[in-house]
């Protein structure tokens, strides 16, 4: 009998992992990274990242000490880099949840090679994002006004405010992402525990693995919990960026007050997140020799998603522009025609369009989708473009207020720049620590996608591909759980 994990060659499917990959080799490939000395490149990257994190800390300290006047924000541009960075980071996080939850529900087995990675990215990106609403309130010691806590002023928050919805959405998102990530990690931490050569590793990984003994009675509830979390995270991830977009869409500012915002923001979030996964994956895969697990096939599939979401984003830009024109509203038209497509911020608008709309169109070509250098460059361009998208949305809607007497311009200060690049430092610090100490590929999940993971697998029939073998298997496992 054949295995249902075998690629169906008639449909042009190829194996998810490289030839010759076995259960043992998967464990080895992933575990050895954390068991041997870090390569020199890791140390160089880590030192640079830690330095930037230090800059972040110093800049935030200065900001808290002095006040948010140290930023370039001023009348009429009260939101600028702070909220741009917040939305950018939150958006990057979305790809992780999409890969771990949505692709899981769609039974996209190729996700197993990249989901751990992407989920880690989600958590670190959300940490970076959470810094901004925290510090942009100005008096950070009043940050506790945000949650509904009883206080001596007998005040409660305004639950009709989208900013408060954001507090709930983002904190729920962070909590659920962390839980999802940890649940996925438990079996792999147990693998590390069982391989541990030193006492410290045995104790630390052992404590974190919670005494996991790969029992099928446990797997049963575990898989159900995983399925439920995936089912819960899917609407959650859609809701989070929708709520973020409500911060803008429920206002009466021309350029923000549009109904297309929630789906447009969600598509943009997935787009930027996949680009970031691609950037990180290409580097890590090359440095750590993960090419047998993260194959060209994975990269191509990710590029297809980048093409899809990039085109969705391009459609949203066009539609936004069209509606502004078609509405006949002078203020809407002014924002799109004179503040974005032309005018003092036209450079930002056209950077956004070239990076987000034009660059992913290269991926219509199969050859370019499979070109590592192109993938890397496009992923960086998309990251830049998506930052500019948020910058354009926020700043170009604000810098020309309704009266020409309140027209201004926005220039970032050094502190703006320090804080932005500082969060990149924090992100990479956390990410490098993750790569160093935590199984960066979901070992158990990748194993379950091998042909020999199927109990009906018979190695003697491995050579000839009979797609018919499936029929017989199907009856035996009607209520079977997902294999991942």
């Amino acid at each position, binding site marked *: 009998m054949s295995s249902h994990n075998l690629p169906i060659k008639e449909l042009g499917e190829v194996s998810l992992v490289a030839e010759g990959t076995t259960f043992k080799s998967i464990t080895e490939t992933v575990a050895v990274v954390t068991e041997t000395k870090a390569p020199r490149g890791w140390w160089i990257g880590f030192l640079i990242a830690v330095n930037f994190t230090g800059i972040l800390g110093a800049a935030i300290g200065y900001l808290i000490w002095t006040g948010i006047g140290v930023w370039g924000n001023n009348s009429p541009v009260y939101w600028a880099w702070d909220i741009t960075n917040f939305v950018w980071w939150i958006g990057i996080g979305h790809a992780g949840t999409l890969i771990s939850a949505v692709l899981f529900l769609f039974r996209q087995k190729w996700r197993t090679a990249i989901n751990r990675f992407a989920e880690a990215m989600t958590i670190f990106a959300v940490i970076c994002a959470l810094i901004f609403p925290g510090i942009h309130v100005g008096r950070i010691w009043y940050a506790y006004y945000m949650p509904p806590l009883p206080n001596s002023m007998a005040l409660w928050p305004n639950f009709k405010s989208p900013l408060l919805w954001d507090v709930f959405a983002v904190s729920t998102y962070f909590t659920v992402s962390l839980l999802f990530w*940890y649940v996925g990690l438990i079996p792999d931490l147990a693998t590390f525990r069982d391989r541990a050569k030193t006492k410290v590793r045995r104790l630390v990984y052992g404590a974190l693995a*919670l005494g996991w003994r790969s029992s099928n009675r446990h797997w049963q509830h575990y898989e159900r*919990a995983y399925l*439920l*979390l995936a089912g819960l*995270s899917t609407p959650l991830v859609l809701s989070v960026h929708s709520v973020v977009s409500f911060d803008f869409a429920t206002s009466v500012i021309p350029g923000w007050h549009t109904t297309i915002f929630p789906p447009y923001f969600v598509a943009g979030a997935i787009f930027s997140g996949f680009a970031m996964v691609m950037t990180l994956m290409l580097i890590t895969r090359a440095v750590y020799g993960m090419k047998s697990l993260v194959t060209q096939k994975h990269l191509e599939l990710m590029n297809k998603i980048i093409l899809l979401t990039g085109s969705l984003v391009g459609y949203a830009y066009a539609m936004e522009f069209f509606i502004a024109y078609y509405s006949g509203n002078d203020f809407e038209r002014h924002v799109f025609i004179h503040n974005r497509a032309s005018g003092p911020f036209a450079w930002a608008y056209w950077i956004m369009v070239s990076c987000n709309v034009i660059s992913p169109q290269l991926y219509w070509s199969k050859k370019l989708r499979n070109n590592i250098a192109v993938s890397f460059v496009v992923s960086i361009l998309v990251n830049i473009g998506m930052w500019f998208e948020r910058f354009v949305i926020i700043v170009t809607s604000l810098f020309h207020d309704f009266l020409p007497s309140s027209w201004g311009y926005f220039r970032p200060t050094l502190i703006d720049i320090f804080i932005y690049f500082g969060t990149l430092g924090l992100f990479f610090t956390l990410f490098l620590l993750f790569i160093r100490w935590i199984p960066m590929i979901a070992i158990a999940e990748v194993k379950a996608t091998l042909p020999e993971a199927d109990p009906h697998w018979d190695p003697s029939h491995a050579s000839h591909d009979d797609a018919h073998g499936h029929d017989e298997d199907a009856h035996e496992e009607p209520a079977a759980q997902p294999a991942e």
Partner: protein
Amino acid sequence: MSDKTLTLYLAEYESAGACVHAAEKLRDAGYAAFDAHTPFPVHGMDQAMGLPDSRLGWLVLPAGITGVSLGFLMIWWMNGVDYPLIIGGKPAFSIPSMVPILFELTILFSALTAVFGMFGLNQLPRHHHPIFNSDRFASATDDKFFISVESSDPKFNLEKTKKLLEATHPTNIELVADKDDEVSEDAP
């Protein structure tokens, strides 16, 4: 054989298929306290072991309902009764604007219950288990498949169980005892 000490047979297999067939044999022989240990969840193992469907969903559903109800009560009390805020001419207590927060709280409560409910049903964390006394068991998280039969099973019998397991063609069988209760009590 002492009642206190948990002893178990541990049979090792090379393939997922062999492990599933062994589980089917034990199920058919009427064993209840046996388990399969596999590096990843194996398709069809639940049926092979005769396990009922996981009850986790029945914990998560009420948790989600609790989340949405508590959220409703909270917003109604805080904005509708205790501290009414009139913003944008909207009523102090307005249901449409509650939807995002109610949704997030439903998800939050459900997700927390899915994870901690799973830990509860699995009785994890449990760092001490006699099965860890086997040296070979470490490969259960790597590339080997195991069946364990615990001495607490009413059908457990040192000879008969061993015979039954041998008939499933394992690559290895061992008897694992709980070392920590050790020596003084019983040495079979």
